[in-house]
């Protein structure tokens, strides 16, 4: 017998609950070593590693675990890079680099974030924003939205996919800005390795 499944596996649920809430901290760490332009890629690679960890349940501090992966990956890239940051070089072997303010970058999933999302929804193209509001604020089903707006289900799907992708990306950028605002030190300088 087939059963209804949520389309999330156990490891995905764990990942969403334990790993993703600290995304801004990983990006900050990655940006510190590799620069903002490469940070997202480094973080995504770290995520992929984490999702390939078979015994993920035994990881007692997922945040520290992922930060360590980010650190290792950064180290690997730095060793191959022609341009590195002075501060990064100084930290290359310091794997126990302090994680100074565990919650400073964590974005509270509270009212202010929800308000921010409402603003993000409103900044979507009008029909896309309308569909997202009907689905997530009013809680209408895709079929009901299609009927209400006299559009096809597949058009509803396209609006939802577009809105969800833009909000997910916008959320990353929003967190990156928070991280930027939280960073006390000046931007690292670059040196060229010969």
């Amino acid at each position, binding site marked *: 017998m087939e059963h*209804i*499944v949520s389309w999330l596996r156990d490891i995905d649920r764990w990942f969403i609950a334990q790993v993703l809430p600290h995304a801004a901290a990983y990006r900050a760490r990655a940006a510190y070593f590799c620069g903002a332009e490469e940070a997202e890629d480094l973080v995504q690679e770290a995520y*992929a590693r984490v999702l390939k960890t078979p015994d993920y349940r035994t990881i007692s501090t997922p945040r520290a675990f992922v930060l360590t992966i980010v650190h290792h990956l950064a180290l690997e890239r730095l060793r191959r890079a022609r341009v590195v940051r002075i501060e990064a070089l100084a930290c290359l072997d310091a794997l126990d680099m302090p994680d100074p303010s565990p919650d400073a970058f964590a974005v509270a999933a509270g009212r202010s974030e*929800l308000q921010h999302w409402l603003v993000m929804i409103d900044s979507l193209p009008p029909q896309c924003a309308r569909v997202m509001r009907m689905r997530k604020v009013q809680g209408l089903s*895709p079929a009901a939205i299609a009927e209400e707006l006299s559009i096809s289900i597949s058009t509803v799907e396209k609006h939802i996919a577009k809105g969800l*992708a833009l*909000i997910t990306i916008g959320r990353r950028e929003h967190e990156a800005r928070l991280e930027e605002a939280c960073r006390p030190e000046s931007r690292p300088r670059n040196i060229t390795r010969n």
Partner: protein
Amino acid sequence: MSTRVTPPQYHAQLTGTAADWLSRLDAGTADVVAFEAWRDADARHAAAFAEVAATWRDLDGLRLMPTDAPMIDPALGTMPRRQILRAAMGAAVAAALGGGFAYRAYARDHAVTGVGEHLAVSPAPGLSIDLNTDSRISWRMSAPQQLCLEQGEIAIASKGGCELAVNGESFRLAAGHYNARLRGDSCELAVFSGGISNGAGLHLVAGEMALMAGARVTLRTSDKAELGRVTAWRHDTLVLNGESLDYALGEINRYLKDKIVIGDPALARIRLGGTFGTRNPAEFLQALQDSFGVRATTGANGGIILTRG
């Protein structure tokens, strides 16, 4: 170890693809096997999907957020009153964020919801079922238009008609919109559009409701407001119109793992009106306190006990 640096466009595209899968799963139109193949093909796909799924789940918090911004879309006219009332309910964001995370299923042979969950499924093209809390339906995969309501309550939207079996009785539903609820051994059917018939001469038309207890059928014609109350659950609301507290608790407790009980028999006679969110009882309890001075205390087992303040 790969040190390949992929351009930012790659991540944006991947996020777009993940969102595309999610929206199709949400609408019940995804090819689940193809989705799983895509996700399994690359851990980056899995990470991208988990990220959009997290955003999708977190956006559910908007449904319970008290907001100053009116949630009325000018293009859609006035939002139903219950929506506005629900939007004004107390912040229960944490409950929403931690709540059940159920997606639509496609071509499965049964669908279930736990207490407090709400699920929409599409067993076949043109057939959409919303399951209320603590409900279960089943169908044969070879004949998805033949549904069986085993427990709880569902709303049915059918474009080509379907069959519904409840308590061993079978009903023929024409294309239309319906609500079906099991209440113990009896069953309540409501017709919003279309019509219901069975082999025993029953014919229900739009606007009619029937309570069937064995061979006994009680029919009544309902106005639009009453039919609206029947399906308020689809918007996570409970609409009361002078019912007793006893009845109200019976309804709201369907959605709560930690039940609310009356600690003082005299309270059972209180009559209530209004619209309340079913995802979190805080608003309901506050209304009881404000209007009737009823105090709610949480018992050792998590249940909530009502007493006169």
